[in-house]
């Protein structure tokens, strides 16, 4: 068996050991198995990388023929190319660190073994998602990660709202998956295959703006909206913070939520063929980035702030994709994986230190108590705010430059969002780590730095957040953009269908100016946050006392309520309704006021209600009559009229 197949195999084995041996395996073995599985995957990835680099060709590793039915042939095969290898590094690398972190973080939990089993299962699904050589394997991974995220969010299902959050996440993901699945069937219809290589090859022969490609890309993007939490399917992500913090870091920051971006980059030929979809993606991304950033401004839950920030950053990635800057969008995926995982793990460390307190209004002055966490958290904050030379600066700036070229209004909005990002992140940092401690005495006594299994991942990620941006220097620095060079072969198809692809028209002076402006904005935001929360020592307000716009922001724009009304309620209502087509009360209501028939059915159902055989047979007979009318009604009426007309003549 080749090395490639081993990559997802290790987590699967880890899952099987910890999952099947749940309760039987001693606790001391659980963590080494779980971490070991991730680490072995990472090592294998490194080996595969060298193998790939040696000849530079896309490797297709077929395992077996999956299904052949009516002209459609789908094989179970893995594809290793530039895109999947980078995703593999992120998933296994960050995954290993987070597994390590979980060892310390979850050590007191009774479901320790179960947790590692789920984490490994998640890794397995995520690896399937990025390694598959066709859309079906991607879809299976796609559903698999959704399922694992569901399991992991609901991990502490003692509290009922955790269960609800989990279900919400799953249902929203399913809505997205619906789009994805329809997209897959459309691809089968259009191309007769699901293998990436042959789909893209065939696609290169198509015209720009092909309508069926537009439908395909649009449906696939609906899937991405669900998985990558874009408007309107994003409210599950903040709720998903109910899960354990390592899960938030791994699934809801570094890996799963970026699978939408992976999918678009993977299908870049199709998206390039459909400029309309791209425009739509760009605007959805812009709106999401702005909306989520504005909600994050006044949240007091440390994890909620980070969650909305993730949604907002995902928005930036989609803006990048939408303006055809696939590399820039993907670049941001990489850097974001570093600094957002760092921030989440840091937050977890804070929560750990604060004895499970998540409210930043009860924190403050933690800097001296937990120095490593604070320092690494600061690095993460700077990185996400876009201050040079940290990772976030390079990737975000590249996206913004492309947006400026594409559409000035969109650029302005993106800048506003970027300003807000810097502000709320520094607000979070200052409120948590500076000033006076606002919590209880007990919490203060209990403050302690986390164990080394938790701090080591923080330090590693902090290092990556500092240097991670150097893989993609802007052109104006006259240094190589390693990432762009590496990913370049992926876009051969796009270049073939759109000669304009990848050409930059910005002058160097404009680019310098843009860069300076965004750094300036971030610095100003930092200053404002410092002024409000450090100088003035403003206390974070209780959301119930906020007025006007602030309150709306804090209440997340009432979106959950809107969903309740628009989506959950109708299903509930419909459920009740269908129920009661056999129930007298609803029948009463439905047919009320329609004369004799009403009172007839009323009495019928009063007497017969649900459970009555007579009523059932009546319904059957009505159905028979209806079907007869449906099937033959028009025909009979036609013939009668023709006879009637013949007679009158």
């Amino acid at each position, binding site marked *: 068996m080749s090395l490639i197949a081993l990559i997802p195999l290790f987590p699967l084995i880890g899952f099987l050991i910890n999952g099947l041996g749940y309760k039987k395996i001693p606790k001391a073995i659980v963590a080494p198995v779980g971490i070991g599985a991730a680490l072995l995957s990472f090592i294998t990835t490194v080996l595969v990388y060298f193998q790939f680099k040696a000849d530079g060709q896309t490797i297709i590793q077929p395992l077996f023929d999956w299904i052949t039915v009516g002209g459609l042939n789908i094989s179970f095969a893995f594809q290793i190319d530039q895109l999947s290898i980078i995703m593999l590094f992120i998933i296994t690398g960050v995954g290993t660190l987070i597994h390590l972190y979980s060892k310390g973080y979850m050590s007191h939990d009774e479901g320790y073994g179960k947790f590692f089993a789920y984490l490994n299962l998640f890794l397995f699904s995520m690896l399937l998602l990025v390694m598959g050589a066709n859309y079906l394997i991607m879809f299976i991974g796609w559903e698999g990660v959704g399922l694992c995220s569901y399991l992991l969010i609901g991990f502490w299902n003692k509290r009922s709202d955790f269960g609800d959050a989990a279900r919400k996440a799953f249902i929203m993901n399913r809505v997205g998956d619906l789009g994805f699945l329809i997209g897959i069937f459309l691809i089968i219809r259009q191309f007769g295959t699901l293998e990436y290589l042959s789909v893209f090859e065939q696609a290169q022969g198509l015209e720009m703006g092909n309508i069926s490609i537009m439908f395909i890309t649009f449906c696939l993007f609906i899937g991405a909206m669900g998985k990558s939490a874009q408007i309107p399917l994003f409210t599950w992500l903040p709720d998903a913070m109910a899960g354990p913090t390592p899960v938030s870091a791994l699934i809801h920051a570094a890996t799963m939520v970026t699978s939408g971006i992976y999918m678009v980059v993977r299908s870049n030929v199709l998206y390039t063929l459909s400029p309309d979809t791209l425009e739509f993606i760009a605007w959805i991304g812009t709106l999401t980035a702005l909306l989520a950033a504005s909600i994050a401004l006044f949240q007091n839950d440390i994890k909620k702030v980070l969650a909305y920030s993730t949604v907002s950053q995902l928005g930036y990635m989609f803006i990048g994709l939408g303006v055809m800057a696939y590399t820039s969008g993907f670049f941001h995926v990489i850097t974001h994986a570093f600094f957002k995982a760092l921030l989440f793990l840091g937050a977890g460390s804070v929560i750990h230190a604060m004895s499970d307190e998540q409210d930043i209004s009860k924190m403050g002055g933690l800097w001296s108590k937990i120095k490593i966490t604070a320092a690494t958290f600061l690095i993460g904050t700077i990185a996400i705010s876009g201050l040079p030379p940290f990772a976030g600066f390079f990737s975000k700036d590249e996206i913004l430059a492309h947006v400026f070229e594409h559409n000035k209004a969109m650029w302005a909005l993106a800048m506003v969002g970027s300003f807000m990002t810097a502000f709320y992140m520094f607000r979070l940092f200052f409120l948590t780590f500076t000033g006076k401690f606002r919590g209880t005495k007990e919490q203060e006594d209990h403050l302690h730095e986390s164990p080394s299994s938790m701090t080591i991942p923080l330090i590693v990620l902090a290092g990556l957040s500092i240097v991670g941006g150097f893989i993609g220097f802007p052109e104006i620095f006259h240094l190589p953009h390693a990432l762009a060079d590496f990913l370049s072969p992926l876009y051969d198809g796009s270049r073939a269908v759109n000669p304009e692809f990848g050409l930059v028209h910005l002058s160097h002076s404009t680019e310098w100016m843009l860069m300076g402006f965004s750094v300036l904005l971030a610095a100003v935001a930092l200053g404002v946050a410092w002024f409000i929360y450090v100088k003035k020592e403003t206390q974070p307000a209780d959301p119930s006392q906020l007025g006007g716009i602030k309150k709306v922001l804090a209440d997340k724009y009432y979106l959950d309520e809107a969903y309740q009304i628009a989506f959950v309620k109708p299903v509930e209502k419909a459920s009740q309704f269908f129920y009661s087509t056999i129930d007298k009360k609803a029948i009463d209501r439905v047919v009320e006021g329609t004369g004799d028939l009403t009172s*007839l*059915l009323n009495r019928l159902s009063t007497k017969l209600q649900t459970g009555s055989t007579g009523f059932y047979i009546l319904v059957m*007979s009505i159905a028979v009559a209806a079907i007869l009318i449906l099937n*033959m009604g028009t025909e009979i009426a036609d013939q009668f009229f023709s006879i009637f007309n013949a007679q009158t003549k």
Partner: protein
Amino acid sequence: METLETIKNLTMTQWSFYAVSVLTLFGALGTILSKNPIHSVIYLIMTFFSLSAHYVLLNAQFLAAVNIVVYAGAIMVLFLFVVMFLNIKDEAPELDNNKIVIGASIVGGTIGVILVAAIRLTESQKIDPSTYQIKTGFIETLGQLLYSKYLLPFELVSVLFLIAMSGAVMLGRKEKGERNF
């Protein structure tokens, strides 16, 4: 007047058909509208007898006989037996409930109207005298078919009867400690 002429000109066969048809429908309506279950049974037996008369008119003598033996002789006796055995009182409150009756009539009427309309619009098939076999409904023809072409289903009916027999015994019989009725 035209109707009267038509009635006058009816042949013997047509007379029989209409008379028996009226009897059939009368029996059928009696079955479903009688309050006393025993009356229903008797009306139903009447319907079966008139159906047998139809079979005779259609030259299916053997079926006519079997119909009386199986339906009137066996099935209806079973019905009568159960009705009397359970001593069911002749209460039929549902028949006084006009809404049920009207509702059923509307639904039944709709299906009926569609069926009748469809039948009226279909031209009546004619007998082809050249291929007509007088012996179609005779016992020899049917017997030969039943034991040659339809041997398998004929044998498999016995499986059905085995199920019905053991099932009926199982469900209907008195268990220890139960009252007779």
